[in-house]
C-alpha cells in the first residue's frame, strides 16, 4: 500500500513541476542603462513582440490602414500596449539599497513594424544621483504574471555614461537576491555600480 501511495505521489510531484508555463505573448528585449553627468537616469528599452501579437496590436492601431504606424497611431500603440503596464513599472525593476525604485515616467516612446514584428523603443525614467562612493543597482526586465514571456538579452546589455562617471556592470541571474525571490530563479539581471 505504501509503495503504491509513494508511486502515485511521485507521479503527482512530477506533474506539479511541469505545471509552470503560461505565456501568451512573447517579446525579445534589449536594454541600455543611461546616465547623465551626475546620475543614473533610466533604462532604455527595446522590445520586439512575436508576429501573432504584433499583428493583433498593429491591426488595432493602424487607423488609416497604410501599413505603417505614424502620428497618432504611435500614441494608440502606447495606450494599448504600454499604459496597462504602468502599475508594474513597465516591467522595469530597479533595486538600490534593498528596495525597488519607483518609475517616474517613460519618455521617447516610438513604435514601428519591422519584419512583421511590433517594435517599441522607450526610456523608463529613474533618478539616482552619483556620489563619490559606489552606488550599486540591479536591473531586471520581467513580467511576473507570466502573460508576456520576456526574453531579455542581458549578455549584450549596454551602458551609456559620460566620461566623468565610473561605471562597472555585468549580467547574471538574480537567484539568491531577497527582493527577487518572487521572480523565476533563472531570471537574468544587470548588476551595475557607479560613482563620480
Amino acid at each position, binding site marked *: *500500500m505504501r509503495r*503504491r*501511495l509513494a508511486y*502515485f505521489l511521485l507521479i*503527482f510531484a512530477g*506533474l506539479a513541476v*511541469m*505545471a*509552470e*508555463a*503560461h*505565456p*501568451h*505573448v*512573447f517579446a525579445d528585449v534589449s536594454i541600455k542603462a543611461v546616465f547623465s553627468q551626475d546620475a543614473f537616469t533610466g533604462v532604455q528599452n527595446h522590445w520586439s513582440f512575436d*508576429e*501573432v*501579437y504584433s*499583428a*493583433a496590436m498593429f*491591426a*488595432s492601431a*493602424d487607423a488609416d490602414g497604410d501599413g505603417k504606424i505614424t502620428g497618432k497611431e504611435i500614441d494608440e500603440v502606447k495606450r*494599448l500596449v504600454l499604459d496597462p503596464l504602468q*502599475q*508594474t*513599472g513597465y*516591467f522595469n*525593476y530597479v533595486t538600490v539599497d*534593498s528596495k*525597488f525604485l519607483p518609475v517616474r515616467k517613460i519618455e521617447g516612446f516610438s513604435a514601428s513594424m519591422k519584419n*512583421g514584428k511590433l517594435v517599441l523603443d522607450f526610456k523608463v525614467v529613474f533618478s539616482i544621483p552619483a556620489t563619490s562612493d559606489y552606488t*550599486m543597482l540591479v536591473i531586471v526586465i*520581467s513580467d*511576473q*504574471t*507570466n*502573460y508576456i*514571456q520576456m*526574453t531579455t538579452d542581458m549578455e549584450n546589455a*549596454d*551602458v551609456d*555614461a559620460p*566620461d566623468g*562617471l565610473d*561605471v*562597472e*556592470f*555585468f549580467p*547574471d*541571474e538574480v*537567484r*539568491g*537576491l*531577497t527582493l527577487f525571490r*518572487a521572480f*523565476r530563479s*533563472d531570471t537574468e539581471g544587470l*548588476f551595475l*555600480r557607479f560613482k563620480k
Partner: protein
Amino acid sequence: MNKIVSLILILMLAVAATAAVKKKRFDVGGGDAPAATEASVETVAPETAAESAVVPEKPAEKTRSIYTVIAEEQKVLREKLTAAISAMKSGDWDAIWKFLAICLVYGMLHALGPGHGKSIVVGYFIARRGRWRQGVALGAGITVTHTMSAVLLLLILYAIFKATVFSAFETGRIGIERASYALIMLTGVLLVVLAIRDVFKSHKGCGCDAQINAAAGTAAESKLPPIARWREILGVAAVTGIVPCPAVALIVLFCLLNSMVALSLLGALVICIGMTITNVAFGIAAVAFRKGIDKGSAHTHIATKIYTVATLAGGVIIFASGLLLFMNQFAGRV
C-alpha cells in the same frame, strides 16, 4: 607630423575616457549576493573598442528552469506557426499538415501552464471519488470550454470591432477571469464545508457504522463515499473553463487578419485537441490517485477519516489554486 601626433593623443584620450565604463564583475557583498558574483574579476572591455575587447569570461553554465524551457518551446512553435500560415497565404497548401501538427503540440505544451484547470481537476478528484470516464470528461470539459469560449468571444467581438478587436477581447477576458477565479475559490470552500460536515456526521454517529460494517465483513465498498455527480463535473468544467484562452484567440485573429476563416477554426480545434490531451492526462492521473487512496485505506479502521481528509485536501487545493490565480493578476506591482 604634428597633426598625426595630435590625432594619436586625442584617440588615446578618447579611449581612456570611455574606459570609465567597464563590463566587469564586482563583489556585490553580503549574503544577498548571487552565487555567480563570487567569480573572480574579469578583463576590462572598453565599450568603444568592441572588436579588440576581451569579452569577460562567462560564469558557469546557466541553468534554465522547466518553465523557461517550455515557454521558449512555445515561442519557437509560434514562430513556426506564423511561417506556416504565411506559406499557405502565398499558395503553399502543403504547409497545412505542418500547421496542424504545430497546433497540436502547441496546445499540449500550452495547457501545461497555470490557469488551464489542471490543479482543479486534481483537487476535485482528490476530494471526490470519480470514474475513469469522469476524469476524461472533466479534463476535456474544461479545455473545450476554455478554447471555445475564446473562439466565440473573439468572433462576436470581431463582428463588432473588426480589426481592432483584441483590446476589447482583453477587457472582456480580464473581467471573466476574475469572476472565474472567484467561483473556483467558492468551489474549494464548498468542498471544505462538505468535509467539515462529514466530520460532524461521523462524530454524531461515533463512527460506529464503519466499525459495524467492518465487523460484518462488508467493509470496503460500503464505507466508500459516493461517486462524483455528473452535474457537479459539468459545473466545475464550466466555472474553470469559462476563461477564454488568449493564445487561441490570438492565433484565430492572426488567421482572420490573413483572410483565412476556415483555417482559424481548424487551428483552434486542433489546439483544443492538444490541450485536451494534457488535461485529460491530469484527469486520469487524479482519478487513479484517488482510487489508490480508496483501495489502500478501505481495509483500515480509519478509512472514514482518510476520506474526510482527502475531501478537505481537495477543497483546499482548489481554493488555493483559485486564490493564486486571482493574486497572480496583481503580481509585480511595487
